[in-house]
C-alpha cells in the first residue's frame, strides 16, 4: 500500500507550525483497495474494508479522531505504527491506560473528557496500590517524549490517542474490539470419541427416529402465528415505548409497567388479549380479571387455580395444611366455593389428596384453566371492564434524547427500588386482599344494619 509507485499517493500534511509527512486521503485508500480487490460493485466492499481498517486501528483519522470511519473524500488519515496495532495477544492493560490518562492530565492540566475523567477516578480507586508507579511512569514518559523532535512528538501523541480511542472507546459507541467471552475448549483440536460415546449416540438417534413428529407446515404455521401476534411487543423488532431503558438509561418504561400500577400501558393491555396464559401470568392482568369475575360472581375457578399454583410453588412444610384448606373450600361436596369439574377428575383429585404432594391438583387445575379459557376469557375480552381499561390505558410518547441528555441519564442512574421494599408492599397488599375477601359474617352484617336503624 505504501509503495511509491503503485501504492497510495502519500503527501505531506501541512500544520500550523510544521510539516508532517506520510498522510493519505480517504478516497485514495478506497480507490486503491477497490483496485486491489478488483471489485466491480461501486466500491461498496472497498468502503466497508476501509471502514474496518479504521475501526480496528490500522489507519487512524487525523481530522476528527473520534469518528472511526473511512470517508470517501479528501479527509486525511495516517498509518498506525505496528507497536499500536491491535492484537489479541496483548490486551490493552488498565495500568497502561492509567499511565496514558495521567500523561494526558499533565499535558492538558486536568482538562480531560468526561468519560476519561470517569475512567481516571475509577482507576485511581482500583489501582491505588500502583498509583505512585503510575504517576512516576507518566512523568517519565512525558519527559522522554519531549526529547524527540516536534513533528515526531505530534505524531506519537496522535498515535497514542488513536490507540486508546480504539481500546477504550467513549460511552455508547460501537467498538470493533468487542469480542465475546473466550472459549475454554479449542474447537479446532481433534477430539477422540470413545466407543461408549458412539454407543450412546446410536441409542439417542434411534430413539429420535422413533419419536412422533409434527409436520413442518404445522409447526411453521404455529411459529408464524406467534411471530405475527408478538412482533410489535418484541423490544428487538419494534421500538419500545417510551424508550428502551438499556439504550437510553431512562427507567420510565419499567416504572410504567410495575406490578401495582393504576393505569397500565396500552401494549400491556393488548398483550392480555393474546391468551389466557398471558393474562394470568401478568399479575396486573390477573387483578383486572378478578375484578371482572367478582362482577360475574364466578370467582371460584380463578381462586382455585391460584390456590393450586400456591400449592405447586409453596414450601413443602405448608403443603398438608394448604391441601386441606383447598379441599374444604373448593372440592368437598357443599363447599362454600365449589368448583364444577367432571366426576372423573374430582374422584382422582380427592383420592390423591389423601397423600398430598406438589402436583396432586394438576389435573383439576388444567381442567379449570381450560374452562376459563374456553368460556370466561372471551366474555372478559368483550366485557365493559376490559374495554374500559383499554380506553384508560396509557400510550406514552417516545423519548427523544439528545446526546447531552443521554450522558445526563447515564450519570444519574440509580439502583432503583430495593426488592425488600417491593416485597413488603406485596405482603401488605396480600394482607389487605385477604381481609377484604374473608367470608362475610352475615350475623355481624345484620346487626350493623339493625343498629343503623
Amino acid at each position: 500500500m505504501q509503495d511509491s509507485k503503485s501504492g497510495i499517493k502519500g503527501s505531506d500534511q501541512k500544520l500550523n507550525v510544521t510539516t508532517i509527512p506520510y498522510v493519505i486521503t480517504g478516497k485514495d485508500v478506497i480507490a486503491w483497495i477497490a483496485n486491489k480487490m478488483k471489485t466491480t460493485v461501486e466500491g461498496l466492499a472497498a468502503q466497508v474494508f476501509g471502514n474496518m481498517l479504521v475501526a480496528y486501528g490500522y489507519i487512524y483519522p487525523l481530522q476528527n479522531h473520534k469518528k472511526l470511519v473511512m470517508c470517501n473524500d479528501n479527509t486525511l488519515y495516517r498509518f498506525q505504527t505496528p507497536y499500536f496495532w491491535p492484537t489479541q495477544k496483548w490486551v490493552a492493560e488498565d495500568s497502561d491506560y492509567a499511565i496514558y490518562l495521567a500523561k494526558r492530565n499533565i499535558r492538558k492540566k486536568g482538562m480531560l473528557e468526561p468519560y476519561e475523567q470517569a475512567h481516571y477516578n475509577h482507576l485511581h480507586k482500583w489501582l491505588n496500590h500502583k498509583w505512585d508507579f503510575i504517576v512516576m511512569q507518566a512523568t517519565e514518559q512525558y519527559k522522554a517524549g519531549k526529547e524527540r523532535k516536534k513533528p515526531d512528538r505530534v505524531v506519537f501523541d496522535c498515535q497514542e490517542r488513536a490507540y486508546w480511542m480504539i481500546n477504550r472507546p467513549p460511552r455508547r459507541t460501537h467498538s470493533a474490539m468487542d469480542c465475546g467471552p473466550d472459549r475454554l475448549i479449542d474447537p479446532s483440536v481433534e477430539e477422540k470419541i470413545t466407543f461408549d460415546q458412539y454407543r450412546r449416540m446410536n441409542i439417542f438417534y434411534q430413539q429420535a427416529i422413533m419419536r412422533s413428529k409434527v409436520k413442518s407446515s404445522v409447526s411453521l404455521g404455529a411459529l408464524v402465528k406467534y411471530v405475527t401476534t408478538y412482533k410489535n411487543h418484541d423490544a428487538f423488532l419494534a421500538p419500545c415505548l417510551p424508550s428502551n431503558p438499556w439504550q437510553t438509561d431512562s427507567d420510565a418504561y419499567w416504572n410504567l409497567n410495575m406490578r401495582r400500577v393504576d393505569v397500565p400501558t396500552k401494549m400491556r393491555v393488548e398483550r392480555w388479549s393474546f391468551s389466557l396464559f398471558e393474562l394470568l401470568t401478568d399479575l396486573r392482568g390477573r387483578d383486572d380479571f378478578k375484578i371482572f369475575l367478582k362482577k360475574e360472581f364466578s370467582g371460584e375457578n380463578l381462586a382455585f387455580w391460584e390456590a393450586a399454583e400456591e400449592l405447586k410453588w409453596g414450601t413443602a412444610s405448608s403443603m398438608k395444611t394448604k391441601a386441606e384448606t383447598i379441599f374444604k373450600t373448593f372440592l368437598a361436596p357443599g363447599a362454600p366455593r365449589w368448583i364444577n369439574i367432571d366426576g372423573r377428575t374430582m374422584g382422582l383429585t380427592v383420592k390423591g389428596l389423601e397423600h398430598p404432594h406438589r402436583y396432586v391438583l394438576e389435573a383439576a387445575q388444567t381442567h379449570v384453566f381450560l374452562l376459563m379459557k374456553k368460556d370466561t376469557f372471551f366474555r372478559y375480552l368483550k366485557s365493559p371492564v376490559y374495554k374500559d381499561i383499554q380506553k384508560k390505558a396509557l400510550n406514552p410518547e417516545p423519548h427523544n434524547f439528545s446526546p447531552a441528555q443521554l450522558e445526563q441519564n447515564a450519570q444519574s442512574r440509580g439502583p432503583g427500588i430495593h426488592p425488600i421494599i417491593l416485597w413488603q408492599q406485596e405482603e401488605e397488599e396480600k394482607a389487605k386482599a385477604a381481609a377484604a375477601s374473608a367470608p362475610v359474617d352475615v350475623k355481624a352484617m345484620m346487626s350493623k344494619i339493625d343498629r343503623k336503624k
Partner: protein
Amino acid sequence: MSRWCRSVDELATRRRQQSECERAQEALCKVTSCFQQLATSLGASADCSFLREEMDETRALAHRISSGLSRRLIRLLSDSDSAPTGQEDRQVSERLWVLFLSVLESFLSDLRKASDLIRQFPLGQRSDRRSLVNAGCLDGVVGVAARVASVQAPWLTLEEESIPDLTNHITGLEAILSDMQLRVPVPFWSVEATQPLWVEAATELDEPEHSLEDLMEVEVVSDGNKMATCCQPPCCVLGCVG
C-alpha cells in the same frame, strides 16, 4: 543500651537502603519509559539498526538496575521480617516492593511486544525495509538515547554482569517476578498511594504544552457537511464511533 544502639544502627542502614532503592526505582522508570519511546518506532519507517542497538543498550541498563534492585529489595524485606521494625518502615519497604513489581510487569509487556515486532519486521536485508510502515515519524531517537545515557543508578558502576539477549531477558524477568512473588508475601491492597488524585495536573512541567494540542488540530476547512454525508448507512456497516 547496646541493644538500643544496634537497633538504631539497623534503622539507619535500612533507611539508607530504602532511599537507595527509591532512587533506583526512579532510574528504572526513566529507562523503561525511554525503552517504550524507542519501541513505538519499531516496524515503522524510523526503524533502523541504530534504533535496535539503542534498544539493546537501554534494555541492558534496565536489566542491570532491575537485577540489583530486586536483590536489594528481597534482602530488605526478608531482613525486616526477622528484625523487629516499626510499622512505617515495613510499609515503606512494601510500597517499594509493589512499585518495583509494577515496573517489572510493564517493562515485561513492552519487551514481549518489542520481541514480537522485531521478529515480524527483520532488518537483515535491504528488501525488508519495504515492509516498514510509513507511520510519519522521521527519526527522533537521538534525544531519547541521550536521556537513557544520563540515567544514574547507585550501583551501576559497581556491578558488571553479562547482558542476556532478548528472549533470555524475557524469561529471566518472568523468573524474577514469580520468584519475588513467591518469596515474600506482600499484600498489594495494603499499599496506598502517597499522592492524591489529579496531583500531576497541577505540577508545572517546563514550558507550557498547550501548543502541542493546537498542533494536532488539523485544519478542518469547510469539512463539516462532508463529515455528515460520508456516514450513510450503506457504507457504515460497523457503525460510527462517536
